[in-house]
């Protein structure tokens, strides 16, 4: 009823938004959130493919679950690092963290 393209386009939009967020945001947490958005888009993709194209093995669905798991784990670890950076330097903007360059 709902063509798969709809989901795929939705996913593409979300993904692009996330990408935009990563590129544009200065705050590390916001970047992380943008990445989460991208992962959501990916998950939509997987699930859509699983249920529309390959319902027998529904690998995509499983993939989607794992993506969510990984995304959650990622948030945990990333936040710890962000927190550590903040503790040490009182910054949370990624573009201020440029001790190392060139």
């Amino acid at each position, binding site marked *: *009823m*709902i063509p*798969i*393209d*709809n*989901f795929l386009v*939705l996913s*593409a*939009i*979300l*993904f*692009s*938004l996330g*990408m*935009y967020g990563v*590129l*544009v*945001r*200065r*705050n590390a*947490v*916001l970047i*992380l*959130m*943008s990445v*989460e*958005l991208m992962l*959501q888009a990916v998950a*939509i993709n997987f*699930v*859509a493919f*699983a*249920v*529309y*194209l390959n*319902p027998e093995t*529904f690998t995509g*669905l*499983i993939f*989607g*679950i*794992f993506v969510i*798991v*990984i*995304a*959650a*784990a*990622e*948030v*945990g*670890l990333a*936040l*710890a690092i962000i*927190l*550590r950076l*903040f*503790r040490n330097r009182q910054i*949370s*903007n990624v*573009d201020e963290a440029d001790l190392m360059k060139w």
Partner: protein
Amino acid sequence: MTYEEAIFYVIAAVTVAGGLGVVIARNVIHSALFLIMALLGVAAVYVLLASEFLAIVQVLVYGGAVTILILFAMMLTRVRDTAGPMDGPQRPIAALAATIFLGTTVLAVTQTEWRGNTEEATVISIYEIGEVLFTTWAMPFEIASLVLMVSLIGAIVLARGEEGE
């Protein structure tokens, strides 16, 4: 437009609005709230995709744990106090890049003739999922647990305050 499609568009609109909010909100807390909105929208999309299990996971893991974590982190890092604009100077080029990417992707997915039944989602039962998760996909499952463990170890080691802090 069918009834289901209408629902889809509403949900999609909410999700996209949420996503948009995440990336353009001037206030970080708003961003976080928009993220919740987007995540819930995605959960609804899963429902539309006949994957209730995933929707539940989504709500629990994301709507619950992740966002709370993020909000905590925001508070701990006093994001609101940071001076300067929220967005970097890359905005125009970022917008351009994202748009191009969107265009490319949309073009690609619409141009592709997907194989299989692209009109109707198949319902996959939660039991089936449970079964394959522990049999066919046992190895990723095990590894995923290790990933979580790594994340845990890392988070603890890094976030834990030491004496003198």
